[in-house]
């Protein structure tokens, strides 16, 4: 029989651990020790644990909560399908039978996984920036007041679009099986990215103004269609690939044409983050399409459906378009306005080219990509 000598270690100091450890490999264990309360504590502990105790001899009870437990897949390799009965368990954990079943809709690897997710998450974690120190908040603002108004209008527009970019993926994040940990982490850090963007765009807008610009029905109608989309692949396609993809061009435009260093910096840093969001969208949709080519038709249909739904809305509000022209012009000089206008027209073309390129990466033909890109919301996002 195995003997465990606790020395002077009491059960009220962790002595039970040594007994439990011995019982893991021996059905009967003799317990000796000099703690004054050992004779009181040992039977009480055995009773609570379902072990038999006669004198100082413990016989292991038959009760084990690991009976019926199931391993939640392999720690390094996500399963094709994650049963809801794994609940919130870490991937690879031993899950006790009977854990509460969570209402999780996204349980199939095919629908959401990207081999690149872990790398993109690590990159995102390493690239987090501090709004307080990364932006030159005190940089001089020397442009005319109307140009500042234009900057504020553009920031107002960016804030509501980034709000959609935060809330739409978060809706899916709460339905994602945590077994797909890397995707969960990536969506979480994307939400943190968007939170930071909302912060810096708001702070930039308030540098010289106490009021924000106009939020239009058309702009919000466009974003509302993203909220209405119940399918992760389609929502991701519309938001990340087409919407945020277009925003890469927009943020690059602001980075290159804004009249002050602070605005250029917020656009540059937000653009870096958005590039990762687009990369993840392309990565998981690319893998999804490899396994389910018919998804391509659903994606195309979704663009057409959204276009039809928005056909009677204004899309990008004139205030934003004009604000972008004035932002790029930097002054009311006719020549500057001409250049600003040309830059915005060029921006729209850049967005279209970028969308077509990304659509082709997802396997759409050149013609289909051009057609779908032309149907993309005039609100850009």
């Amino acid at each position, binding site marked *: 029989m195995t003997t465990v000598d606790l020395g002077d270690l*009491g*059960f*009220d*100091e962790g002595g039970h651990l040594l007994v439990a450890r011995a019982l893991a490999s021996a059905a009967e264990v003799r317990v000796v020790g000099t703690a*004054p*309360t050992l*004779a*009181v*504590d040992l*039977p*009480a*502990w055995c*009773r*609570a*644990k*379902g072990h038999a105790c006669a004198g100082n001899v413990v016989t292991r*009870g*038959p*009760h*084990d*909560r690991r*009976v*019926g437990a199931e391993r939640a897949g392999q720690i390094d390799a996500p399963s094709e399908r994650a049963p809801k009965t794994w609940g919130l368990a870490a991937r690879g954990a031993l899950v*006790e*039978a*009977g854990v509460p079943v969570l209402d999780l809709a996204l349980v199939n690897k095919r629908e959401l996984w990207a081999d690149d997710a872990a790398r993109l998450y690590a990159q995102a974690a390493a690239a987090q920036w501090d709004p307080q120190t990364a932006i030159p908040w005190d940089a001089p603002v020397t442009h005319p007041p109307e140009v500042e108004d234009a900057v504020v209008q553009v920031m107002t527009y960016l804030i509501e679009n980034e709000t959609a970019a935060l809330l739409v993926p978060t809706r899916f994040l709460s339905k994602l099986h945590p077994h797909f940990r890397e995707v969960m982490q990536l969506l979480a850090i994307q939400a943190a990215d968007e939170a930071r963007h909302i912060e810096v765009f708001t702070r930039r807008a308030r540098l010289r103004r106490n009021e924000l610009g106009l939020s239009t029905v058309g702009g919000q109608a466009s974003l509302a269609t993203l909220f209405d989309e119940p399918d992760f692949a389609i929502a991701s396609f519309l938001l990340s690939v087409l919407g945020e993809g277009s925003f890469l061009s927009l943020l690059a435009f602001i980075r290159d044409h804004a009249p002050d260093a602070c605005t250029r910096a917020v656009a540059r840093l937000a653009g870096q983050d958005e590039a990762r969001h687009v990369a993840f969208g392309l990565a998981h949709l690319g893998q999804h399409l490899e396994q389910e080519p018919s998804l391509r038709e659903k994606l195309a249909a979704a663009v057409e459906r959204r276009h039809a739904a928005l056909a009677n809305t204004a899309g990008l509000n004139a205030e934003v378009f004009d604000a972008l022209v004035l932002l790029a012009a930097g002054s009311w000089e006719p020549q500057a306005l001409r250049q600003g206008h040309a830059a915005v027209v060029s921006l729209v073309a850049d967005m279209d080219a970028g969308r077509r390129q990304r659509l082709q990466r997802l396997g759409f033909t050149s013609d289909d990509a051009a057609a779908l890109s032309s149907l993309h919301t005039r609100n850009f996002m």
Partner: protein
Amino acid sequence: MSDFILGAVAYDAKVVTIWDGFRAWFAERGLSFDYVLYTSYERQVDAHLRGDVHVAWNSPLAWIQVERLAKKHGRTAQAIAMRDTDRDLTSVILVRADSPVKSIADLRGKRIGVGAADSPQATLIPLLALSDAGVEPGRDVEVQRHDVLLGKHGDHIGGERDAVKALLAGKVDAACLIDGNRLAFAREGLLAPNATRVLHQTGLYDHCNMTVLDGGPPETQRFRELLLGMSYDDPQVRPLLDLEGLKAWLPGRTKGYALLERAVERFHTLDPWLAVR
């Protein structure tokens, strides 16, 4: 009334979770089962005698109450099941480690902290140990009660916790509690290792049981079979067993109530109650 009805005392909100869960489990096995909660064991015992419930989940003191009341009215009470953790308990009397009290006799003239007045484990059985040793509670030693939820027969741990707090604060010279709660209070950080000393450990006694009167209705046998058949391996009932504090249900036995019987006799605990029934 076609349901087989159990009476239980609502000493904690978890009682609802436990019996709702068991109710569903019984229903899946064809037993139409329901339960009624009471605010005190006294109300439950009265209800049981009236026939409002078919089986009562009784504290050890409630068992003695119902058994005596049944006998008084020419009926018989039977303990049909109990938890594995209801068997062979002990209580301990703690003193502070540096206390000059070395034996029960040394408690003469001191103050002892107990649980609720109707707690078998934290009041009646430990005070019997004093009485057996010739130190009469109330006469030779002052008894400070901690009446948390009177009528619940000490099911609520609060009375014992308050007694231990009083001991640590120096308000009493000794405190009474069930053996397992010594470890529970150590885990909570209330009882530091070596801060107290076990002055006395009582003899063995049993705790709760499932009681029926006059054998109960025909469904009693099925209820008992299902209860004894519950397995800790069953993931549906395992959380309920954890909540109720057992690994397995065992047949009821009554030999473990001798100490409490003696305590009740010694202190005339039930006399006024029994006299009016």
